[in-house]
């Protein structure tokens, strides 16, 4: 194809997206659209899968059966979300194996929030409330993104996230209405998860390299800073109801703007964690890789069994 022909196809493509028409896997698309989607969708899938690890840490130690079944169901949902997203990404022509290799080799990123440790039970409450809360804010606009399989997967994910956030907030509420030690535990979890949750919504607009293109392709409907402001505005009153304090001395309601003003985010910390120097980066990948490698004989056995059964059927028919 000549450059002019490609340019023409690109114009038709961009116009289609501008009209809110969806792009399906077999439709023509610019290479950059395909690559950007493979990157973002696989990172999203990896985040769901790695996101199971900090929470899985507490399944055996959940304080009651009620909490335990809820946490199990939530972690199972995260696995499901990962699977929806992996299979949606596969429609763009990358194999599952290749995506796993990218994750395990460190080539692909996942949300850096999962590189923080879950050291008390209150962390499970804080993750549901804050991390899933921030995830919902990120994900709701993606339900109407331009790539059909991604949008459909996100509709399913968003339906399920609301339970995650509510179960987290209920854990926080119970702790905050409990003994002073329990309330202190909830405060400590908020202290440690607040800033990483704000960072989860991505670098500030002036430092974000993909925003403009992503807006055009409807991979983004609002900028990182707008999403962050929305998260803060809706979360601070929830902290007030719990009776615990957001760890930001500059946090103040601004009557004029109708939003909360907030303090400076430590972006050095963010980039350190992204670059692999967070508290748990190595541990997370080791756990993930050993689960994958330890499961290899099971996958091989299942495949061998399936082949044997298929052979039997053929022989019977013959």
């Amino acid at each position, binding site marked *: 194809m000549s450059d002019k022909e490609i340019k023409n196809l690109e114009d038709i493509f961009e116009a289609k997206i501008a009209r809110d028409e969806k792009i*399906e896997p*077999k*439709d*023509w698309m610019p290479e950059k659209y395909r690559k950007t989607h493979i990157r973002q969708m696989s990172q999203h899938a990896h985040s769901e899968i790695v996101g199971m690890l900090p929470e899985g840490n507490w399944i055996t130690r959940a304080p009651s059966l009620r909490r335990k079944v809820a946490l199990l*169901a939530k972690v*199972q*949902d995260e696995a*499901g979300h990962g*699977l*929806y997203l992996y*299979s*949606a990404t*596969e429609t763009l022509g990358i*194999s*599952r*194996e290749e995506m796993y*290799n990218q994750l*395990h*080799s460190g080539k692909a990123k996942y949300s850096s929030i999962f590189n923080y440790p879950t050291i008390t039970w209150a962390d499970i409450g804080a993750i549901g409330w804050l991390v899933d809360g921030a995830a919902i804010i990120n994900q709701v606009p993606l339900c109407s993104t331009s790539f059909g399989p991604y949008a*459909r*997967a996100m509709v399913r994910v968003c339906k*399920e996230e609301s339970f995650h956030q509510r179960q987290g907030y209920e854990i926080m509420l119970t702790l905050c209405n409990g003994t002073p030690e329990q309330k202190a535990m909830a405060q400590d979890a908020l202290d440690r998860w607040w800033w990483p949750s704000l960072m989860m919504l991505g670098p500030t607009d002036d430092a974000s390299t993909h925003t403009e293109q992503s807006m055009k392709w409807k991979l983004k409907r609002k900028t990182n800073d707008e999403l962050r402001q929305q998260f803060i505005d809706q979360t601070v009153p929830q902290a007030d109801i719990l009776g615990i304090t957001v760890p930001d001395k500059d946090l103040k309601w601004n009557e004029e703007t109708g939003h909360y003003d907030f303090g400076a985010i430590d972006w050095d910390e963010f980039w350190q964690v992204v670059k692999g120097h967070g508290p748990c980066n190595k541990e997370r990948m080791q756990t993930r*890789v050993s689960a994958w*490698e330890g499961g*290899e004989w099971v*996958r*091989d056995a*299942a*495949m061998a*069994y*399936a082949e044997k*059964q*298929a052979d039997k059927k053929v022989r019977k028919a013959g």
Partner: protein
Amino acid sequence: MSTDKKTKNWPLWEIFVRSKNGLEHRHFGSLHAADADMALENARDVYTRRSEGVSIWVVESINITASNPEHNGEMFEPAADKVYRHPTFYELPDEVKHM
């Protein structure tokens, strides 16, 4: 990592779910499984954790033949100029009721 080792990957399956009797099966997504039985079990766990279905079909993805969107012209345009297939093509006086 075992990239040089010849491990066989589980094939891909397309999953169709009937959400309740009276409705058709609808495409829900896909997943990997060693065989059809496992695909059914995985589909139950992945796509119907909240009673989204009463019946599941699984079809190995390689068995699906799909039309090519680049040929949508010759494929679907013949229907575009056949307005006489639609009831509004036929002009009837207003007095005619129930038609």
